[in-house]
């Protein structure tokens, strides 16, 4: 079991290492804009989940 978990962790590390350097350069501004957009969309999804829960209950 422990061996399987460590194998999975190794796999994730290998993926992170393989894609460490992005091929497409992004300026800090673009990167922050993407992060803001991502957080904003997740916030909207959270709102929808809230609406879903209120409708169900």
């Amino acid at each position: 079991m422990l061996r399987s978990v460590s194998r999975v962790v190794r796999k994730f590390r290998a993926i992170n290492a393989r894609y460490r350097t992005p091929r497409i350069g992004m300026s800090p501004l673009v990167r922050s804009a993407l992060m803001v957009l991502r957080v904003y969309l997740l916030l909207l999804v959270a709102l929808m989940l809230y609406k879903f829960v209120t409708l169900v209950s």
Partner: protein
Amino acid sequence: MNFFAKLYYRLAKAIKAVQLYLVIAGPGIVVMVADNDAGGITTYAATGAKYGYNLIWFLLVLIPVAYYVQEMTVRLGAVTKRGHAEAIFSGFGAFWGWFSLVDLLIVDWLTLVTEFIGMTAALEIFGIPPWLTVAAVVLLLGTIVLNGRYWTWEKIALFFCALNLVYIPGAFMVHPSVHDIVHEGLVPNLPGGLDGQLFFFLMANIGTTIAPWMLFFQQSAVVDKGMLEKDIPWGRFDTWLGSVLTIIVAVFIVIVTGTVLRGVDIESAAQASVQLQETHHWVGTFMAIGLFDAGLLGAICISLASSWAFGEIFGWAHSLNTNIKEAPWFYASYFVTLLSAGAVVLIPGAPLVLITLFVQVVAVTLLPAALVFLILLLNDREHMGEYANSAVQNVIGGSIVLVIIVLSTLYGISVMFPALFG
């Protein structure tokens, strides 16, 4: 003689073009028609019942929207020979890659649940219990993917795409008023004014036409099929034909429920089928058959989109041209996704109809993030070369992203402050 020689030459050329298209045809049509999945059918049926023909114009607007978004994946797949997940990891690094992959897996799985909801509801109309439907569907899909050839899988998927056209005769059988369709449906209008419900329906309709899984699916399918740069024009045609077909089917569903069930509160396509059967038996039956077919086609594609993405990132063999021994993890992830989604439907008392509608809206809310990456990848001139996005394509793509964000925001505001929009 000269005339006949020219005619023969043109005919032979046309036949050759059709033959060539039939070789290339597949990813575009399959992804687009599969987009009219069980959730889509429910959304269109509910739209017609709620707003009559009034939102047909909006559906027609979605033809170029769907085309422009999906066409980008054709170019990206044919040029880079990489699936969408791998393209994001490679282009933007692991951090953004994991974000996109997790988004995809959640939305894919939720959408797959809605496919099972649609299929079980459709067959329940014919007296088949949900557990049997889930078991039979898993067995059928397993058999289809395990045959070990992309080509065979694609042709079976195309057969189910053709079944999706069953709604068209149904619409003619309810004798809709062409005058009303033209006057109410083709003139842009916002029935009932701007309110939370209208935002919800507009978003749900966008969500049924373009969804994050479609980007991943079509690009991976283009790569698995082995399409090259020279095939891009046919890939575009395939995508365009698919976009038109999917919206035609959507419009015909809206016409059916807008004619017969106008003003009736429709919660699901299955409910619409039962109510239609009371007055138009065969139309209701067609609706139920179409709903099952839509769910099956959606399940065929969505489960593969996740497995392809997993395979690309984890480095597993991930082609339908491989057998289960060569790609065990690819098929294992396929069956785990399928079985777990099917199991949700069997939970007693689960709010299945509400889940279906909300999944569409959540999918469209997460769509802009995926679209932004797609547009950025298409602007990588170093790798895309002459197939990179033009300025016009960027403006169109950017506008689509903007409109979706605005609609999502308005819906969010209407959730928080329902009194604001009346």
